[in-house]
């Protein structure tokens, strides 16, 4: 409990933590408000009846989880700043059993990631609702809200844990954060677009999978795939994300235990 208290203090005392939450809120709104307008603009390309189709409305609400990037960045900061500031010296002097420190960081990061994602997703939900209010014929399924909450909880915890592991693996925090942003916002999106078979295994594909959104496009574009019909369902998506978190946490722990503190 002492270590959890200490790690919790490190988080809430640091101003950047509130910046990450603000970033997540901003990204969730930025993703969710225009989503209904985008879907409506693309209706000629879409299957079903555009926003009359509950799957399309789910797709709009799924954008409410758009803040997950900041859960990953926060996780990186929780671990990476420790080494960057030299704070690791006092941390490991107080608790030389490093595995305990790492577990505490993982627990605090997961908790903070969940809280961050719940807040940002709820705001994103309001944003999506606002966008959809311009289309009174839009229909929402009753399970959508529950799916969103589950997605927020799992993605917040998993991405924050992955962030802590990345922070342990990459010594330079700026490179780690920059790499994470480029990976999630550019590389993953390109992979999903051009190689859906691989893309569905990636965190962003699995987050869409958790929402159980099934969108099919009528697009004639041969090489682009904007459909989500072949993504995994919620069960497999959650299991794979948790597996990724476990692998990352394991590798991060192994590296931290072996590293000399400079």
């Amino acid at each position: 409990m002492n270590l959890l208290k200490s790690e919790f203090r490190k988080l809430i005392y640091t101003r950047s933590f509130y910046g990450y939450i603000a970033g997540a809120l901003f990204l969730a709104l930025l993703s969710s408000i225009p989503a209904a307008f985008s879907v409506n603009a693309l209706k000629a390309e879409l299957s079903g009846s555009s926003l009359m189709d509950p799957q399309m409305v789910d797709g709009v609400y799924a954008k409410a989880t758009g803040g997950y990037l900041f859960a990953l960045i926060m996780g990186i900061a929780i671990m990476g700043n420790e080494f960057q500031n030299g704070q690791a010296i006092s941390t490991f002097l107080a608790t030389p059993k490093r595995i305990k420190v790492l577990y505490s960081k993982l627990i605090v990061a997961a908790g903070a990631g969940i809280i961050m994602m719940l807040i940002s997703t709820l705001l994103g939900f309001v944003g999506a609702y606002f966008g959809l209010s311009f289309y009174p014929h839009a229909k929402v399924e009753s399970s959508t809200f529950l799916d969103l909450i589950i997605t927020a909880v799992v993605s917040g915890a998993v991405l924050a844990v992955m962030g802590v592991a990345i922070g342990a693996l990459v010594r330079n925090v700026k490179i780690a954060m920059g790499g994470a942003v480029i990976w999630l916002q550019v590389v993953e999106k390109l992979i999903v677009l051009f190689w859906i078979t691989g893309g569905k295994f990636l965190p962003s594909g699995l987050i869409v999978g958790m929402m159980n959104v099934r969108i099919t496009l009528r697009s004639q574009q041969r090489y682009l795939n904007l459909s989500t019909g072949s993504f995994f369902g919620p069960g497999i998506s959650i299991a794979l994300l948790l597996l990724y978190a476990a692998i990352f946490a394991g590798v991060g722990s192994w590296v931290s235990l072996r590293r000399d503190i400079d």
Partner: protein
Amino acid sequence: MSIIAFQGLTKAYKDVVAVKDLTANVEAGRITGFLGPNGAGKSTALKCLLSLATPTSGTALIRGAKYQDLVNPMKEVGAVIETGGFNPSLSGLKNLRIIAASAGIGDGRALEVLELVDLTDARNKKVKQYSLGMKQRLSLATAILGEPEILVLDEPANGLDPIGIAWLRDFLKKLTANGHSILISSHQLAEMQNTVDDVLIIHKGRLVTEGTMANVVGSGTLEEAFIRSVEASA
């Protein structure tokens, strides 16, 4: 009675051997100077002692145990390693509260130690606004947070002005008067001559001499004794 024991300690980083076959003991209730020029291997040896680095071979033990195996390390050993260890964006008080929480020490003790090192007025100032001397004092505050009997201090006088050095000397004397045992590393030989009881001199990773200050120095200065020892070991 020996409270700290280095036994054949060697630490190598790839091709560089920072500490080579160091064997030495630190006695209880005394101030022991761990002296040598910059790059001699003092900090590396202390990091091995404090489980911040893994020895390539040999051991560095405190009361017969590795630091990482102590039940409540902060209450047994207080340590200063360089002036790092703090989040520069947080105040001195918040940094201490974070460290105190991890060892189960109450927040009130953080205020107490800040007073002991004369940092009460600067407690809410961000550490990045501290002078080097203030950071050194904050490090000392961290070391005594758990009221340990043993202190391991790595270059605590580094960057201090004459007033700061005099303050540090008095501070350490008060601690030993209360029964503390102190291992203090420094490259400032002239200053240490007035501060320490026993001497371990290390050069290029090897122990070149050890003994009480009187025995090592003889009728000259510590600097002269150091040069004699280095030349004799060459």
